């Protein structure tokens, strides 16, 4: 019998092993120190922000020379603000989902490197494993992160030139 999304959320929320995983720092101290400060972060902890940033970087990688870096835009702040603005019932599983991504290579793929310590090609392979997993719950987790990444990135003005999107007719904040 397939496991439901709610079942997945319960799994995320109550599994003993995963619960233990949730309590340990996701990212080593050195990497945390290297993470770009996220001024005004409201929802994600710094170590979760680090994982999220690496995920978003790969999700929206354009391969284009001169493309803006995720960290140089407001994409992560946008995702953080969005999650902070939603009903906590909806967003509660996200921190643990990020930890699962961080430890996914160890838990699911039997490698010895965490997501944030991998190179780009390995990170892509790890995300592809989530996207194509036989476990529906992993595929759902992938989609949730992809949707957040796409919303965060493609709502940034820096991303629009590469698409030929002329942008809103109103200024920031609805200015006319």
């Amino acid at each position, binding site marked *: 019998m397939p496991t439901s999304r709610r079942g997945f959320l319960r799994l995320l929320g109550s599994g003993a092993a995963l619960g233990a995983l949730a309590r340990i720092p996701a990212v080593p101290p050195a990497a945390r120190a290297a993470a770009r400060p996220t001024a005004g972060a409201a929802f994600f902890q710094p170590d979760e922000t680090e994982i999220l940033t690496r995920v978003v970087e790969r*999700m929206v990688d354009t*391969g284009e020379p001169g493309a803006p870096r995720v960290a140089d835009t407001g994409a992560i702040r946008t995702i953080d603000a969005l999650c902070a603005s939603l009903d906590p019932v909806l967003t509660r599983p996200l921190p643990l989902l990020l930890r699962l991504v961080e430890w996914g290579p160890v838990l699911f793929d039997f490698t010895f490197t965490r997501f944030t310590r991998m190179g780009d090609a390995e990170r892509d392979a790890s995300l592809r494993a989530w996207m194509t997993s036989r476990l529906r719950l992993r595929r759902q987790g992938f989609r949730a992160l992809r949707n957040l*990444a796409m919303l965060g990135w493609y709502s940034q003005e820096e991303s629009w030139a590469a698409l*030929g999107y002329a942008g809103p007719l109103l200024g*920031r904040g609805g200015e006319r």
Partner: protein
Amino acid sequence: MITQLGERGGDLVERADVCVIGSGGGGAVAAAELAAAGRSVVVLEQGHHWTAKDFTQREDEMLPRLFEEAGMRQTSDGSVQVLQGRCVGGSTVHNLCYAFRTPAPILRMWREEHGLPELADDVLAASFARVERHLKVKPIREDEVNSLNRIVRAGAEKLGYSGFVTKHNREGCVQAGYCILGCSYDAKQSMLITYVPRADAAGARIYADARAERIEAEGGRVRRVLGSVVDTRGERRGGLEVTAPVVVLAAGAVNSPDLLLRSGLGGPQVGRNLHLHPTVTVAGFFDEELHAYRGIPQSYYIDEFIDLERDPHRGYVLMPIVGFPALTASLLPGFGREHFRHMRDYSKMAGLLVLLHDQSQGRVENGASPAQPRISYGLEPDDARQLAEGLVHCAEVLFAGGARRVLVPFEPEPLLLAPGDDLAAITRHGVRQGGIAIASTHPQSTCRMADDPSRGVVNAWGEAFDARGLFVADMSVFPTSLGAPPQITTAALADRTAHHILARWPELAA
């Protein structure tokens, strides 16, 4: 008066003739008609009251403001994205303004197969006329058909497919194209600027950030509504209680049954029979810059593949569609450079979707919280086949309109087609849930009208079988899938229910 309760916090205690739950396509109509006839009306809307000045044309700001779960509501298996409004005006604030009356064969089928002779053409005609007048429904002018719709029309005409330019509810449209993010110009004649102000002017007390959580009945009669004052995150800021002899529930086909189930009302059919009008989309890429996101997004409509006179139970229509960058990106498969290969041509992209008149049924059940009802839905084989056939016709139309390539967004590997390719590859692949992005903006039928409580939740006038004075007035009352855009049907049925309540007022108030 429209009061933003979330900003003020505290408790709300009210007494009224009628409590209307929801201010969208059904609730606003019922509230305005009842208030205009002199009834004291309280409207409870769980979303916030946003207006044109708040509509910034930016996805990151508007999706969380206007949509349930910031536009990320889905079925419990994650296979269908369910887009529903959460604001004063409901889904009419983000809809794209197609304005169709209920197809005559559908009304006939509801009368003859569902035992609802009360849904008579002449009775509904008065409601249709009133609603269309208030919503300023009129045909789209030729010069208002944008690049996207012109391409789709050219493709359909080349293939000899039946289609037409539709009617809309717009007035003074500037053709900016941001309808789905709320109209910044107050040109879209949504409930927000039509029936909600009418209700307000007639003395209705309209409360935003007011979440109904339980409807109480006593001795077979509805008695009061209990709930919470919430902030924009949905967190509780106070309690609310509205005592009224009549309650009109119009929270949409997901939240209405969720509330009835939480209240122990509605009988055994509550939440069942869910239809979604599921949609799947194909992207065509052209040589020239289309900027398809500018102009009126949907004005042409292909009805070649639905013949309700011959068979009122099945068929599908094709409709142009455009998304802004984030919405478009979320519908395209994959990630990273492969994904960007398609996004790079965003300004040359035209979307065409299949909207299915579905026979498949799903269910709404209570979730862990009112914020997240549980939605399940399974595509039946015939419906999956029709969606796949529809994708083929979408590709045909886009190629006939000049597309240089067409992307069918199967997951995880999309199907990329060039002119002359064998389109049967689409049907060979087939449509399965989880294997392609499926979206729904028209959930319906979860509190359906019927002639008997064993087959439905409400009678032909929208009144619950098990609680006198409790009416439902949204898309959840449709006995079956509608097979057409639902805005006018929803409003007309709500108008009809409101006038029925007025006609029975002395008895209902006693």
